[in-house]
C-alpha cells in the first residue's frame, strides 16, 4: 500500500569495490580536509586492519592529525564527548572512522557535537530537531557488514549511567562518504560474520514491514535480503571469498539506507534494551529476537512478510507456496537460516545463551517501551507483550 506520506534521503557518496580504500585521500581533498582525526578501536588497530587505511592516508599526504582508539564496544556518551575534545585539541578538520557499529556511531555522535558547536551530546538529543550546523567532513569505512551505519541518519549511543541506548536521529548525522572494500571484512570471524549479517537482514525485514515503510526503502530492502540470503553462508564458510564479502557489505549498506528512511521495529527496540541493560551484543540480540518478533507480528504483517518470501527462498519455491501461507513461510525461512548459522558459526538462539535471566526481564521490557523504534512496529506492543516475548526467547 502506498503510504499517505513519506520522506526519503540518502546523500552519502559510496565508494565500493576494488581499491576503494586507496581513494580516501582524494575524497578528503575534495572535502577540503587536511588534518583528519582517525577513529577506530584498539582491537582493529592491534589486528592491523586499520593500517590498510592509515598507510594509504600517510602515503598520499593526508596523514591523520590524531588517532583515537579508546572507544568502548557499545560506544558511550562519555567517549563521544572525549572524541570531540581530542578533535578540537589536535586541530583536526575532518573525521575518518574505521570500525564496526560502535566506532561509526561514536564518530557520528562526536561529529554532531562538533557541528552543533556543543560540548555535550546529551544537550542536543532528539529527532529531526537540529539545524545543519558546521560541516565537518566525515568518511566512514565499515569493518563489519551489518550495521549499515555508514549510510544512516541515526547514531545509537549507550548512556552508561542510565543503562540505556539512546538514539540521535538527524539527516545531518549521515556521513559524506562511505567506503566498502572487501579487504576490511576478509578476516571477520565466522560468528561475527553470521550475526552482523543477521543484523542487516533484520534491518531489511523491519524496514520493509514497519509503519514507516515506503516504496523507495522497500526496494532497497528486497535487494538487500536477496544478497544476504545468497551470500551469508559462503561468507561464513569461506571468509576469504572477496566477492561474497563485498556482496554482504553492499547488502548491509542497502539495508542501512532502507531503515534510515523507514525505521526498524520491535526487534531493535528490545535489542537496544538488551544492550543497554544486559550488554548483549547488538547483532546477537537481533538473531535471538528476530523469529519471536516475526511470529508476534504475523497477524498484522503477514502480507508484508509474504512479499519478502521470493527474496528469502527464490522465486520458484515462493511461487509454489500457497499465497495464504507465504507470510508464515517467510518467517520459517528466517528460522531455518538462523538454525543453519547456529550450526555453522555458533550464533546464539536463546537469551539464556548470552547470560540474560528471568529477573532482568521487567527492566528490559520497561526500557524497550521507551525506545523510539517500538512506535513503528507493525503490531503495537505494550509492556506485557514485550515481557511475554522475552520469556519466550529465554
Amino acid at each position, binding site marked *: 500500500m502506498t503510504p499517505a506520506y513519506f520522506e526519503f534521503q540518502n546523500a552519502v557518496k559510496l565508494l565500493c569495490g576494488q581499491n576503494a580504500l586507496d581513494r580516501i585521500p582524494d575524497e578528503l581533498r575534495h572535502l577540503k580536509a587536511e588534518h583528519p582525526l582517525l577513529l577506530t578501536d584498539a582491537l582493529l588497530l592491534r589486528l592491523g586492519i586499520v593500517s590498510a587505511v592509515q598507510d594509504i592516508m600517510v602515503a598520499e599526504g593526508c596523514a591523520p592529525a590524531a588517532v583515537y582508539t579508546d572507544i568502548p564496544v557499545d560506544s558511550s556518551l562519555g567517549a563521544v564527548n572525549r572524541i570531540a575534545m581530542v578533535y578540537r585539541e589536535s586541530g583536526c578538520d575532518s573525521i575518518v572512522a574505521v570500525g564496526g557499529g560502535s566506532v561509526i556511531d561514536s564518530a557520528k555522535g562526536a561529529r554532531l557535537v562538533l557541528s552543533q558547536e556543543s560540548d555535550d551530546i546529551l544537550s542536543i*538529543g532528539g529527532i*529531526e*530537531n537540529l539545524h545543519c550546523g558546521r560541516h565537518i567532513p566525515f568518511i566512514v569505512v565499515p569493518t563489519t557488514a551489518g550495521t549499515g551505519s555508514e549510510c544512516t541518519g541515526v547514531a545509537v549511543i549507550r548512556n552508561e549511567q542510565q543503562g540505556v541506548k539512546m538514539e540521535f536521529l538527524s539527516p545531518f548525522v549521515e556521513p559524506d562518504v562511505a567506503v566498502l572494500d572487501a579487504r576490511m571484512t576478509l578476516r571477520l570471524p565466522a560468528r561475527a560474520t553470521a550475526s552482523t549479517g543477521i543484523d542487516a537482514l533484520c534491518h531489511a525485514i523491519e524496514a520493509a514491514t514497519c*509503519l514507516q515503510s515506503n516504496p523507495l526503502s522497500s526496494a532497497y530492502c528486497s535487494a538487500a535480503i536477496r544478497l544476504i540470503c545468497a551470500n551469508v553462508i559462503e561468507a561464513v564458510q569461506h571468509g576469504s571469498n572477496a566477492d561474497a564479502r563485498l556482496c554482504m557489505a553492499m547488502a548491509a549498506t542497502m539495508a542501512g539506507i532502507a531503515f534510515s528512511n523507514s525505521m526498524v521495529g520491535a526487534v531493535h527496540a528490545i535489542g537496544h534494551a538488551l544492550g543497554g541493560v544486559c550488554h548483549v551484543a547488538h547483532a546477537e540480540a537481533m538473531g535471538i529476537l528476530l523469529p519471536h518478533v516475526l511470529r508476534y507480528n504475523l497477524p498484522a504483517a503477514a502480507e508484508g512478510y509474504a512479499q519478502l518470501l521470493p527474496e528469502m527462498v527464490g522465486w520458484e519455491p515462493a511461487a509454489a507456496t500457497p499465497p495464504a501461507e507465504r507470510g508464515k513461510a517467510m518467517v520459517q525461512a528466517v528460522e531455518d537460516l538462523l538454525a543453519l548459522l547456529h550450526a555453522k558459526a555458533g550464533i546464539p538462539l536463546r537469551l539464556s545463551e548470552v547470560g540474560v535471566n528471568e529477573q532482568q526481564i521487567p527492566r528490559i521490557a520497561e526500557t524497550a517501551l521507551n525506545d*523510539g523504534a517500538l*512506535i*513503528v512496529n507493525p503490531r*503495537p506492543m505494550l509492556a506485557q507483550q514485550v515481557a511475554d516475548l522475552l520469556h519466550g526467547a529465554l
Partner: protein
Amino acid sequence: MKRRLQAVLIAAALRLVHAALVELQELDPAVAEELRRLPVGISYAIYAGYCGPSLLVRWDGERLSRISDTSHPVKNTLRFKALAIAFRLFTGQIGLAHAYAQHAFTLSGDIADVMRLARLVNRAEVHLFPSIVTRCILPEQPGPAVSPLRIYARIFYGFLKSAY
C-alpha cells in the same frame, strides 16, 4: 479562516488532553502508573507548528500542571512541523504512531522521556475520542477505564472551578 479555525480547535484539544490527564490520574491506573514513573520536575511542551497553539506542562511529583512558556525551561519538546498536521492528530484522523511514521513532528530532549508523554497522550485520547475512532488509530490500547461521559462531565466541572 480555515487555518484560524484549526488553531482554535487544536488549542481546545490541547487543553482537553491536559484536563483529561489530570482527571485520569485518579481514574485510570495506566495513567496513574505512567505519571508515578515520571521524573519529578520533568517538563514537556507540545507546539502545533511554529505559530500555532501550544501546551506546556510540568510534573511536580503529584500533579501535571500547565506552565507558561517563560516560567521554566522546557527540556522535552514535541513540535508538529505544521498546524495542519497537528490538526489531523488532534481530530483523531491519525494516531501518534502514524504521525511519527509520517515525520509529522520533531522531538528535542530525551526520546525515552518523550515516549512517556506519547503514552499519556494515547491514554487521554482513548477517553476523549469515540471508541470507533480509537479502535482504528490506537488498536493496541485497552479500552477506557471509565466512560467518556464521566470524563467529560468531570472536565466540565473542573473547568467551571478553573481547576486546570
